[in-house]
């Protein structure tokens, strides 16, 4: 396939679309509440329906408001129905029905979103590449191969100000230039889709809804750095991601967008899936590499960083799903378009999966710099039944708690760090006033204790001790000395652990002690003064 064919495929695909399209969300969130039977019923009713020639049912990706699934949208007018049951199929096909009240698509939850990564989510059919191409997919790759040199692409990524969306916020351009700078002929590109944070589902959703956008980013990374092999490390708990991604890879190979002569420009790059088997630590890049190499997910000391010595010793670029999903747009629209979004230090948009005690659970993509309050209260409706929000937790077991008074903090790497939290990979859990913060800290420590790889002493044993202390305090049998021991361990585990898991395991404890010390004090034996 040549670069010009892209437009041909897009034109043919758009021409073959029927006037009325009924889009059904088939991402895991909706599937868990019966979306598949809704889609089958819609398909069944349509086959005997007079409107069958002008109407078609399309399984698409996430329409963002997961908490109100199953979601179905009638296009082109865009009316969207929530909580659809198979029995609603005839009314939806006919376009009207007494009990069907469409969602207000102009409410802040939708209106305040700015889509770059999620632009095609809920629109394209993830299982047909033509659908993505018709929506403009792979134009970034075409521009890269036809208009820009590899070095220019690295420059674009650097100038865009994009930083790692896996949580650490490391400047993506720097990573790319290190790998590109190496003369080793054998290089790799890895997409970290491990997303082990409990309560986070944005990487999974992106891959289930628009896998080609991520793959495009990886191919461009291959072109820019000279790597020829790409791996996507997917969690064992996400079988739907593996299925959809494998279909997308096979189709991309058929269409010459992967393989030995991409877009007829001689670029060699292919992608393989590596499936994890349940280990949160494999979200850490050196443990992920050890796992792909067929070993235990045990982190290695750094330096050397993977950019220089990575997979099988070769220079390796590792970025998060969402990071790659930005690349195509950066190349197509230019780095200045991207750096105009967000804040001077945190450019572009950020995708969050909002869950927990919140009215509207789902996926939001907002410019960096958006205050947490706007996301949690304005867009997601705050806590249900009018309860007050106590805190918002970002970054999962590695993150911190943002107390309600600090919800005006903008989503920005430095601003979040300043209040003892992190932007994190994208999980955002809303906690209402009934939440016991000592119990939440215990929950995350229990998670880290169970997920610690066991190699280094501070993390392996420190998490066990901290969990024991949090449990004792939770049972109201803790003393002031226990709180001091907790703080000592938090300091030691944070500064002496070998990898990110251990170094950030104490964050929920230190952050809950910093913002909710009262929750601890009132549980101490003999009360706060003891």
């Amino acid at each position, binding site marked *: 396939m040549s670069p010009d064919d892209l437009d041909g495929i897009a034109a043919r695909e758009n021409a073959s679309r029927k006037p009325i399209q009924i889009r059904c969300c088939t991402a895991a969130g909706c599937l868990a509440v019966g979306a598949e039977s809704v889609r089958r019923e819609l398909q069944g009713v349509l086959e005997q329906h007079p409107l069958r020639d002008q109407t078609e049912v399309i399984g698409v990706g996430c329409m963002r408001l997961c908490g109100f699934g199953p979601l179905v949208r009638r296009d082109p007018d865009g009316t969207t129905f929530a909580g659809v049951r198979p029995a609603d199929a005839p009314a939806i096909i006919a376009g009207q029905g007494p009990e069907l009240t469409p969602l207000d698509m102009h409410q802040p939850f939708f209106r305040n979103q700015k889509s770059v990564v999620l632009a095609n989510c809920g629109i394209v059919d993830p299982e047909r590449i033509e659908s993505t191409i018709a929506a403009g997919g792979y134009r970034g790759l075409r521009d890269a191969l036809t208009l820009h040199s590899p070095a220019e692409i690295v420059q674009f990524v650097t100038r865009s100000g994009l930083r790692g969306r896996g949580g650490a916020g490391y400047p993506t351009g720097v990573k790319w230039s290190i790998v590109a700078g190496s003369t080793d002929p054998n290089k790799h590109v890895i997409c970290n889709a491990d997303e082990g944070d409990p309560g986070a589902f944005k990487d999974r959703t992106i891959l289930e809804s628009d896998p080609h956008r991520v793959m495009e980013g990886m191919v461009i990374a291959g072109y820019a750095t000279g790597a020829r092999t790409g791996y996507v490390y997917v969690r064992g708990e996400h079988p739907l991601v593996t299925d959809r991604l494998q279909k997308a890879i096979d189709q991309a190979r058929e269409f010459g967008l992967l393989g030995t002569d991409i877009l007829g420009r001689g670029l060699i790059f292919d992608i393989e899936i590596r499936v994890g088997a349940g*280990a949160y630590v494999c979200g850490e890049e050196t443990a992920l590499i050890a796992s792909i190499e067929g070993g235990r997910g045990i982190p*290695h000391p750094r*330096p050397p960083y993977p950019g220089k010595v990575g997979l099988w010793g070769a220079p390796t670029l590792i970025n998060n799903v969402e990071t790659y999903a930005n690349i195509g747009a950066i190349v197509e629209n230019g780095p200045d378009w991207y750096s105009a979004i967000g804040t001077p230090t945190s450019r572009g948009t950020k995708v969050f999966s909002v869950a927990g005690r919140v009215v509207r659970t789902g996926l939001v993509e907002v410019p960096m710099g958006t205050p947490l309050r706007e996301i949690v209260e304005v867009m997601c409706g705050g806590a249900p039944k009018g309860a007050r929000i106590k805190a918002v937790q970002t970054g999962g077991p590695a993150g911190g708690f943002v107390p309600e008074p600090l919800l005006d903090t903008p989503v920005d790497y430095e601003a979040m760090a300043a209040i003892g939290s992190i932007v994190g990979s994208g999980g955002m859990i809303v906690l209402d006033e009934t939440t016991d913060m000592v119990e939440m800290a215990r929950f995350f420590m229990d998670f880290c204790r169970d997920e610690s790889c*066991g190699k*280094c*002493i501070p993390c392996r044993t420190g998490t066990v001790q901290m969990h024991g202390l949090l449990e004792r305090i939770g049972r109201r049998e803790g003393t002031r000395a226990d709180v001091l021991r907790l703080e000592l361990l938090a300091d030691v585990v944070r500064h*002496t652990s070998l990898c990110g898991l251990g170094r950030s395991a104490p964050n929920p404890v230190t952050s809950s002690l910093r913002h909710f010390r009262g929750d601890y004090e009132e549980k101490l034996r003999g009360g706060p003064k003891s």
Partner: protein
Amino acid sequence: MTAERKMRINDVQVKFEEGETVLACARRAGVRIPTLCHFDGLSDIGACRLCLVEVEGSAQLAASCVTRAEPGMVIRCHTTRLAEYRKVILELLLAERNHVCSVCVANGNCELQDLATEHQIDHVRFDYQFPALGVDLSHGQFGVDHNRCILCTRCVRVCDEIEGAHTWDVAGRGGTSRVITDLAQPWGESQTCTSCGKCVELCPTGALFPRGTSVGGLVRDRGRIELAMAHRRHESCHG
């Protein structure tokens, strides 16, 4: 002209060769840094974190066993903060499993015990976990007591890198990790173990021991192993 290979350790000027670790330089400069998982001749993994040092200009501590010396580096090996961290790490180890020194074969000959004394540890500030762990005496010559194992993996590395049998490895994860032989079978049943005893020689505690050793009776002669490593090192691929 490449920068001169010089660095400072505890205010002492030290010259180093390309690729040499900070630990090796410190030792040459007569600066003692505590270690447990390190053993000369074995690959370094940076697991026990006792050899952490402060590097001027970096917020993060560096494990000196896996950190290459760089020109102009300024290293601090003995600060009150490092001493406190090392003390806590040793106490965490003493509380993790059942280290009953008084009835241990390695009493008086144990690196963990020595380090505890060196760091003035007179008690452990954390709760003892008292896990239920086994003892395997199925091997004719040797025994393994998991109550005394600190998971430093010297046994795994010497068996793989020097003997080449790879009988030992680590199974499980986190606090429930354990060293195993072959398919987590009794040691005596192993088809790969050559009974060379290198693992027993290198074990820093009383976890691996010659059968029949009485309390405090474990004496180790590591000369034989250091010789084997020297022979292997000149063509070792683990540079």
